[in-house]
């Protein structure tokens, strides 16, 4: 193994690709050669670095310096000053001009522990970081029910939105005697403002694969599908590469590691439908149908894909599993709160100083997340509201900043943690406008199967449009609630049951704003 004194990590994501990261990397190599540093400085392309800068971002270890918006023209200066003479170039640093240093690397990380540190396209780096040890343990030393029990004990709950206990879900499928069972990974991330799963897949695809393998062994599935959005081109290519590497290394295929266990993983590419995030709609889509939800029960765990028992899990949920198996349920429960263990990956967006991605213990307050992890509000702006959990989430006001972000605490606010999306709004954002945009979204995404959702989402959109134009009445506000409540009680799936959450929270927390637009 070769040793380098300095490692430069280049974050590869859609923004940096857009900024021409390929040419940039070539130019960096050339510049390092010019300075005869190619044997001392290692350049590594990796996934998202955990912060959002403009353009191409770099992290340099061991100094732990973050650069943003580095151009090819900056390279001679950067190489000469920093890599040759050891003087970081302040003008390019991410927090230039600010005393605040975001806690990029102090987060308690499980899911993102390798993200931005290893090369996601190289299985050897994942193996070097202790990867696939949990798979080996689960495969060779543990019985399926032991794995299920360990996950149950860990208290892991689904990270897709509903928060169903993962171990319990597996325990329905595991004991069923059946020739064919499936694991389906829900990577159809469509909740507006959410992209945690994309960053997990781009940053550390092997960790997800390891989670899938362990799940497959636990429930006795010999085939797994990753259902991924067609728009996520980079995730698709990274996962395809990772699966092929696993096949080469004998971690997937027939009789894996002489254990007698067979497993293969395939990628299914979605074609653009929010409702396919619903597990039965997703299964319909894999079968080659319109993505319309099925009647439950029977639940997919008993009768799912092609009528076979099928476990459907979110990307983030499965990415937690290797850690649980490796460190045991007790090791995992050190994170989070007693009734909600582990960490949560959030995407913080909007009017904060450092929008980005972070992984924090469950139960951290919204105030801490915004102030400590996102650097507080953007200079000169005041906090007004935060939309938590995407379109199917809730709009919180300032008084609720101390709400603990975990599944059971948020239930008090009739909210679910949902997708981990936090959208922070300043005093200039109109909540009515925001709600209009959310309801337009639901109108567009309703699949049309059931009348309450199909008609209700149109009615909600018409009402909010009327209010937005200043033509609404007080009765219209009540009608919004009544329709949304009816949808909640009568809709077929979670999509139609969701609009009540943003509507009720917006009307309760920001009623004045609606009243100001009501005509007398």
């Amino acid at each position, binding site marked *: 193994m070769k040793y380098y004194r300095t490692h430069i990590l280049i974050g590869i994501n*859609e*923004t940096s*690709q*857009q900024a021409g990261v390929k040419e940039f990397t070539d130019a960096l190599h050339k510049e390092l050669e010019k300075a005869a540093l190619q044997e001392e400085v290692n350049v590594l392309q990796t996934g998202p670095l955990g912060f*959002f800068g*403009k353009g191409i971002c770099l992290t340099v270890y061991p100094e732990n310096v973050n650069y943003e918006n580095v151009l090819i023209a900056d390279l001679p200066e950067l190489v000469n000053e920093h890599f040759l003479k050891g003087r970081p170039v302040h003008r390019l640093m991410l927090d230039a001009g600010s005393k605040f240093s975001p806690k990029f690397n102090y987060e308690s990380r499980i899911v993102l522990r390798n993200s931005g540190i290893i090369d996601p396209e190289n299985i050897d780096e994942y193996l070097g970081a202790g990867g696939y040890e949990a798979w080996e343990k689960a495969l060779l030393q543990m019985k399926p029910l032991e794995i299920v029990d360990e996950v149950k004990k860990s208290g892991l709950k689904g990270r897709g939105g509903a928060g169903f206990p993962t171990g319990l879900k597996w325990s329905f499928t595991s004991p069923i005697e059946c020739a064919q069972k499936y694991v389906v990974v829900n990577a159809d*991330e*469509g*909740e*507006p*403002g*959410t*992209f945690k799963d*994309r960053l997990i897949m781009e940053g550390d695809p092997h960790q997800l694969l390891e989670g899938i393998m362990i799940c497959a062994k636990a429930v006795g599935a010999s085939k797994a599908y990753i259902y991924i*959005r*067609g*728009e*996520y*081109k980079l995730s698709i290519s990274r996962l395809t590469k990772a699966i092929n590497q696993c096949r080469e290394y004998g971690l997937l295929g027939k009789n894996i590691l002489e254990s007698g266990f067979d497993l293969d993983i395939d990628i*299914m*590419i*979605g*074609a*653009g*439908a*929010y409702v396919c995030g619903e597990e039965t709609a997703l299964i319909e*889509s*894999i*079968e*080659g*149908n*319109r*993505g*319309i939800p099925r009647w439950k029960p029977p639940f997919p765990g008993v009768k799912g894909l092609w009528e076979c028992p099928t476990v459907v899990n979110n990307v983030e949920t499965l990415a937690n599993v290797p850690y649980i198996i490796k460190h045991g349920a007790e090791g995992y429960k050190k994170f989070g709160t007693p009734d909600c263990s582990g960490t949560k990956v959030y*995407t913080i*967006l*909007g009017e904060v100083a450092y*929008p*980005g991605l972070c992984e924090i213990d469950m139960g951290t307050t919204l105030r801490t997340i915004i102030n400590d992890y996102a650097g507080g509000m953007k200079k000169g702006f005041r906090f007004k509201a935060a*939309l938590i959990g995407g*379109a199917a989430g809730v709009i919180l006001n300032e008084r609720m900043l101390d709400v603990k972000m975990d599944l059971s605490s948020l239930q008090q606010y009739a909210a679910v943690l949902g997708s981990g*999306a936090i*959208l922070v*709004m300043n005093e200039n*954002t109109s909540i009515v*406008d*925001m709600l209009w*945009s*959310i309801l*337009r*979204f639901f109108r*567009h*995404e309703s*699949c049309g199967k059931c009348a309450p959702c199909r008609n209700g989402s149109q009615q909600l959109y018409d009402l909010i449009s009327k209010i937005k134009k200043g033509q609404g009445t007080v009765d219209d506000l009540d009608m919004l609630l009544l329709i949304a409540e009816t949808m909640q009680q009568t809709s077929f799936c979670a999509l139609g049951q969701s609009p009540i959450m943003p509507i009720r929270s917006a009307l309760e927390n920001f009623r004045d704003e609606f009243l100001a637009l009501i005509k007398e």
Partner: protein
Amino acid sequence: MYQEIFSKYTPTKDNLIYILHDIQDSHPQHYISEEAVQAVSEYLKIPANHIYGVITFYSMYSTKPRGKNIIRLCESPHCYIKGSENILRKMKNALNVGIGETTKDGLFTLELCACLGVCGNAPVMMINDDVYGDLTEDKVDEVFTKLRGVK
């Protein structure tokens, strides 16, 4: 002409979505023609109405011919509060088309889409496989000019 695509997939219904993706991507006008639907129907032995059902359900498929560059502007809440409406107005004017329409020269089709998951750089659009973030009206001009120059 579809044999090449069909030969990659066994004739089972679960391959329908893949086959449709491939047919659409290989067509210079990025759409699925009636003739293609007939061919798929014969290959998979499933009725054409089922195939149309699938095509019209998913937003990525089109049954109408489209331009060389398919613009998909995100209209989700985050991009919306970051000003995607202004960007949309700008695009309509610059291209002289409405939503879902194609320019006369066949270069651009303007579409709206749901969240692309690049919210850190809102407002965002995707043109074919490329994502463009932090859009301003000037940047839209710049991108269009560049794409018009590509032969």
